């Protein structure tokens, strides 16, 4: 069974598929690589649903309550706060929870906010140093 959903036109930006034993490709999500700045509502909703499915219960609760969630860097153990948004939405926190600086790290293509936040979460939680080497630091 192949289930594919096309966003608006052709072009893959954030793509997910599962390779189940029987199903082969279970899910494929396509997004247009060059969406307008504000992604269509449907893309936004689907992006947020995908994000929620990848969040831990604690992160999901945080996001529901505050529109942000915290992640722990894979290399340094530092805490980062990913706020709802597309860019300049990552705060590095100190041990007391105070903001140290901001980081801007975005996937190429104008993705829905949920897709951006999910890419940021996975990057920081799995290849933090490599991701921050690419990111721009702000105050």
């Amino acid at each position, binding site marked *: 069974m192949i289930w594919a959903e096309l966003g608006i036109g052709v072009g*893959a*930006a*954030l*793509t*997910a*598929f*599962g*390779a*189940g*034993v029987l199903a*082969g*490709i*279970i*899910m494929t999500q396509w997004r247009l*690589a060059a969406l307008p700045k504000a992604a269509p509502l449907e893309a936004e909703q689907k992006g947020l649903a995908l994000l929620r*499915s*990848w*969040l*831990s*219960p*604690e*992160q*999901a609760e945080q996001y529901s309550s505050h529109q942000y969630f915290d992640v722990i860097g894979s290399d340094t153990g530092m805490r980062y706060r990913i706020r709802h948004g597309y*860019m*300049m939405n990552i705060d590095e926190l100190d041990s007391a929870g105070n903001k140290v600086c901001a980081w*801007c*790290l*975005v*996937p*190429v*293509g104008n*993705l829905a906010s949920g897709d951006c936040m*999910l*890419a940021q979460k*996975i*990057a920081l*939680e*799995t*290849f933090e140093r490599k*991701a921050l080497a*690419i*990111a*721009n630091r702000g105050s």
Partner: protein
Amino acid sequence: MAAAEERFKMLTGAGFTAAKRLGEGRSEVLKSFDPTAEETLFIPRLKGG
């Protein structure tokens, strides 16, 4: 399954980072195709904003 592996190679070759969900919000970057992965996510190349 072969089509999924082919797609994996195509996307990672094009610069996408593949990750699979481990549960409880954890994930792992995949360097090669994992036929046991329930779901694989492909992240476009990242850049500083």
